[in-house]
């Protein structure tokens, strides 16, 4: 199995894709099989890593995991970092994510999870408290805008660059207003980093906008038509909302990757976000593995709150999807109405031309003009329907998926703890056997293992409690945000409807005397 792979460029190297896929399948089966035979290996989640990185030189400095800042602030915390962390220290530099270096895709996911679960609890506890103090000083004084989409390059290698402007009075930033140029894959890269750091400890990380190969291809190819401009606008708005949601999250705001994304003028390309890259394939594989795991984990839920919440989110998800379908239909029909109104306006104008009674002819022409203006109105309303209402719903449908993911991580955490307990038991049994067989050197080894596993059990319990606590807080925050979001956006949407009606009144009031003037 190839341990090191260069992510193949998009659209190219079909054979490599197959290779990856095949490997991927192997990965998958190995995951499942080793899961079933569980106890011997520590973390089920990192099994793929174990299998593959056997060939590699251990975890590579792939992307920045812990950096200087955190090290400085929470120096004592690093003591608690487990066995693996000493290997981590070389990573603890503020070296920009070396996406340019050949990346072993596996190490993206597995080892980091391990280290995180060890060190996370203390670090995040502290930071969150500090941040909350700041947050409770009410407004998060930071505003993000995404604007000026610009096509860079030509042909299939072209991409859109967006300007990300930040206005803030927060002290953690060096300036109060600054902007940088970013491309879509940069946003995906940011999300990927944030997700890998925070999702598995229970933070609801806002999902990034979806990729669209079709949409982007049209733009690359240079089709300057309304559908590609619409696509770019849709994406721009989605990116803006994504960043705004991300910075609203007190913990994520503190993240150095986020700050780097907003501030630094040069950002190394996040190559692993490509769908058909090695990393992309591995992501898909892991997702599948996760799905299987979910089915096999039977958790004894001791806390009814979690069960209740999960059910609520399930319901909410369904209802939002239903509503989303209806709103999309409305957008579609409104666009249709606009087109038909325009067609009618032209037709009425023609009719007015052929009408030989002068006053009636004039009135018909006026009618045509009114209908043309109304067509414009419908178009604008369709925009509002979409950008305000429909996109709000689709954003939340994806957010709820992230929430569900967080709940799933908690389950996995529980599973880990469970597994550690089972292993400990087995180790104790082994020790007892050794005692009976009276092999002193083996007994010592058994005692060591028992100590090791006792520690793991304790850690597992701590992790589980931590993630449960985090999730409770996060869900509370999420619900508050959700209520605020919906209220704000829906009120804005209703105001757009008000505007439309006001315009309609203006137009028809202007037309009425014309109609009455027919003599």
């Amino acid at each position, binding site marked *: 199995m190839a341990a090191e792979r260069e992510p193949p460029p998009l659209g190219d190297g079909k054979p490599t894709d197959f290779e990856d896929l095949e490997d991927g399948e192997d990965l998958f089966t190995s995951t499942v099989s080793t899961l079933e035979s569980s106890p011997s290996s520590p973390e089920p989640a990192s099994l793929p890593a174990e299998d593959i990185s056997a060939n590699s030189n251990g975890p590579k400095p792939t992307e920045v995991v812990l950096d200087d800042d955190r090290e400085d602030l929470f120096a004592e915390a690093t003591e608690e970092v487990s066995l693996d962390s000493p290997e981590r220290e070389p990573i603890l530099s503020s070296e920009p994510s070396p996406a340019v270096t050949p990346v072993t895709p596996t190490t993206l996911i597995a080892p980091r999870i391990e280290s995180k679960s060890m060190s996370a609890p203390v670090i995040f506890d502290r930071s969150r408290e500090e941040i909350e103090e700041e947050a409770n000083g009410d407004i998060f004084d930071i505003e993000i805008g995404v604007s000026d989409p610009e096509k860079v390059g030509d042909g299939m290698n072209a991409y859109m660059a967006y300007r990300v402007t930040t206005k803030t009075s927060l002290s953690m930033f060096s300036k109060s207003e600054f902007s940088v140029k970013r491309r879509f894959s940069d946003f995906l890269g940011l999300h990927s980093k944030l997700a890998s750091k925070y999702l598995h400890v229970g933070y609801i990380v806002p999902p990034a906008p979806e990729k669209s190969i079709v949409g982007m291809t049209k733009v690359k190819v240079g089709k300057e038509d309304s559908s590609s401009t619409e696509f770019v606008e849709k994406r721009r708005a989605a990116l803006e909302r994504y960043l705004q949601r991300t910075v609203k999250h007190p913990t994520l705001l503190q993240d150095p990757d986020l700050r780097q994304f907003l501030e630094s003028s040069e950002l190394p390309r996040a190559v692993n976000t490509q769908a058909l890259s090695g990393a992309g394939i591995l992501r898909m594989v892991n997702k599948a593995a996760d799905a299987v795991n979910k089915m096999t984990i039977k958790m004894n839920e001791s806390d009814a709150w979690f069960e209740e919440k999960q059910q609520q989110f399930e319901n909410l998800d369904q209802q939002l999807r239903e509503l989303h379908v209806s709103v999309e239909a409305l957008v579609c029909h409104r666009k249709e109405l606009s087109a038909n109104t325009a067609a009618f306006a032209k037709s009425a104008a023609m009719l007015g031309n052929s009408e030989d009674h002068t006053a009636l002819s004039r009135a018909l022409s006026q009618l045509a003009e009114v209908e043309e203006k109304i067509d414009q109105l419908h178009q604008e309303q369709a925009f509002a329907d979409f950008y305000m209402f429909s996109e709000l719903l689709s954003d939340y449908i994806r957010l709820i998926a992230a929430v569900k993911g967080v709940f799933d991580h908690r389950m996995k955490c529980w599973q880990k703890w469970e597994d550690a307990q089972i292993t400990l038991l087995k180790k104790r049994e082994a020790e007892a056997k050794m005692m009976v067989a009276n092999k002193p050197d083996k007994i010592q080894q058994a005692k060591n293992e028992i100590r090791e596993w006792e520690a793991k059990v304790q850690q597992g319990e701590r992790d589980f409690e931590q993630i449960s606590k985090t999730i409770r807080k996060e869900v509370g925050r999420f619900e508050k945000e959700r209520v605020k979001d919906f209220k704000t956006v829906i009120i804005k949407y209703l105001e757009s409807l*008000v505007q439309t009606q006001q315009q*309609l009144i203006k137009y028809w009031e202007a037309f009425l005397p014309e109609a009455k003037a027919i003599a």
Partner: protein
Amino acid sequence: MRACAGPRLGAAMMEGLDDGPDFLSEEDRGLKAINVDLQSDAALQVDISDALSERDKVKFTVHTKSSLPNFKQNEFSVVRQHEEFIWLHDSFVENEDYAGYIIPPAPPRPDFDASREKLQKLGEGEGSMTKEEFTKMKQELEAEYLAIFKKTVAMHEVFLCRVAAHPILRRDLNFHVFLEYNQDLSVRGKNKKEKLEDFFKNMVKSADGVIVSGVKDVDDFFEHERTFLLEYHNRVKDASAKSDRMTRSHKSAADDYNRIGSSLYALGTQDSTDICKFFLKVSELFDKTRKIEARVSADEDLKLSDLLKYYLRESQAAKDLLYRRSRSLVDYENANKALDKARAKNKDVLQAETSQQLCCQKFEKISESAKQELIDFKTRRVAAFRKNLVELAELELKHAKGNLQLLQNCLAVLNGDT
């Protein structure tokens, strides 16, 4: 399903704006308004006082009030079906004496197929939706059915009123039989052979039409009318089709509001946070605004689409008149040529002379009445458009203002709460 359309709507006709929840009554006024000068006089008043929809046919109760001596009684009613209206119309068309008049266009066949299909589909899908949704949709579809029904009643009535108002046609014997004979007229629908004959007649007519309209008319008035009508007819056709599509899109959008309202309601009743009140209020708003949007669509349909559809048919009838006149002109010219030939050969001259005179008379008679008819047509058309466009604008304004108020009230409540 019964519907009543009758003189008692006359008073309501004066007031253009109806505040009542039943927007359907406006349609009846709408179509009557298409022919404004049909203020029926005491001599002959005709209306459709009742109608009954059976599975595949509609039975209209035609009610007549007349002081004319032709009728046995002063007031009487008969039951007629669509085919009998068509028979009456065709008898006018085929009557040579009426060649110089615009024959009021026949009412279109009652078509409930689409509506019935929808109701059926709803019945089949009953299990898959909640009770509220089902009731909501059923009410909607029933209202739609009722609306179509009322429209078809109105269209049949307008036809009769036009005939009754026409100084010549009102005296037609077939018309009187239609009104009075209280047995079934045994007017079977045209069988296949007759339909085929009609088809060929129409084909010949249009082929003729091409030839005949190539002949430039000596009379400026008719020349102008011909050019005008040809173009006008086509444009009205186009406008009518586009208006139809526009109204239907409007209705689809209104239907979406309905579904959105239901979804919001579901969200509101199941949400665990304090946003549920918010959702419920917005759901209510969508339900109400949807009713207004549906009315806008219905009014546009009535004042615009129906108006255009009617004048599509009327302009066709006017074209037919022109065609008949042109035909008679061709006959006249042929008779002239025949007369010249006869005189040259000095054979059957008298016969040729009589024939020529007849053609001449016919042509002149048609031309005279046609001129008047076409002038009347213009007057009627202008008046009808005026009335309908004014009413359209007034209704649009009324609904927009209503909608605006609804939205503003809702926003006030929502902003007050948050």
